[in-house]
């Protein structure tokens, strides 16, 4: 935290972000099946990582803050993961149902 990081770092990060944006937009035009979504999300994760590390200065932040950042994502993973145990293993037989009058 002594001297601020050089401006160059910021510009390079921004360029990388723009490049990734172009990449994700371009790749989406190719038919990759399920990989389309995977690639889209992976690139998004990479972009967020760049923003976090360089714009939000996670790279220079204290361990404590890094732990909080990671823990948050972990908790989100719990929400997705454990509700996933239900949705992944549930078989649904749809039944007729309609909303009441006025809905």
């Amino acid at each position, binding site marked *: 935290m002594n001297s601020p990081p050089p401006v160059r770092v910021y510009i390079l990060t921004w360029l990388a972000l723009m490049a990734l944006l172009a990449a994700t937009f371009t790749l989406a035009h190719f038919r990759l099946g399920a990989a389309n979504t995977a690639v889209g999300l992976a690139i998004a994760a990479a972009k967020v990582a760049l923003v976090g590390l360089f714009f939000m200065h996670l790279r220079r932040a204290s361990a404590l803050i890094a732990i909080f950042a990671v823990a948050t994502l972990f908790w989100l993973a719990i929400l997705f993961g454990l509700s996933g145990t239900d949705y992944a293993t*549930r*078989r*649904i*037989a*749809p*039944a*007729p*149902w*309609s909303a*009441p009058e006025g809905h």
Partner: protein
Amino acid sequence: MNERAGWLLPAASDVAHRVDHVLFALFVVTGFTAIAIAFIVLVFCLRYRRGAKVDRSNAPANKRWLEYTWTFTPLAIFLGFFAWGAVVYAGFYGRARGAMPVFVVGKQWMWRLEHANGRREIDQLHLPLGQKVRLVLATEDVIHSFYVPAFRIKQDAVPGRYTELTFTPTRLGTYELHCTEYCGTDHARMGGRVFVMRPEDFARWLAEGGTRPTMAARGFEAFRRLGCSGCHDARSTVHAPDLTGIYHRIVHLQDGRTVVADEAYIRDSILLPKRDVVAGFEPIMPSFEGQASEADILDIIAWLKSTGPTEEK
């Protein structure tokens, strides 16, 4: 009617006994532990009360082995109960071969039940002794829960889908039926009676009401028996169209035509699926020529009609 003899709840199904065993074991283990803890606390409190002349030297502030003992012993006990409970629980949802289906529809604030032969009852359920029963539950409005304390069974009826439950009544008598998922004003009054009868009495009773099962109910069975649900369930991994409410819907076909899904279209889709392939789907549906009887097809159509929003309020 007073089904509880003294303060004991009758156990009137195969499931009930198994659940009671688990509960009894829980009661013994926790009861013993609770009394033991209370006893130790009492002894300490009396013995080490302020002013009592006792040896207080070298009072320990921690002991590793003790901590590990009282970490892993409870864990082992707890996991034991988990495993036992899970096995019994799985039994509720096991394969229901040879089970007698009963359709249950919850509705604010009553239960409508329908037997395989079409006999309907409201807030009452007649069952033959010793016959395995499979309840298929649905609801017309909010979530309800079907609860027969004497059977120790309970299952929510969830909007938009069917849920199931299997058990065998094992004791003659009349038992309470409740709704145990809060469903609005008369939630407390949404209940009734379950009558477990001798099989011959049940057969007689069933014949009295001798209507045929509704076509839709049979269609639902056929839809599952023939394997249609394997592809057409919303959650199926096979990419096939959702058929809920298909009747009278406009369908876009692969070749650009649009048709209205009437009886003939559905019939063709079952027997000659390659003819009208729906836009956006692969033509993987096999023909059911020879497998699905004419009666099946009519039943299925009736069933599909009944899933529509406009039909049958």
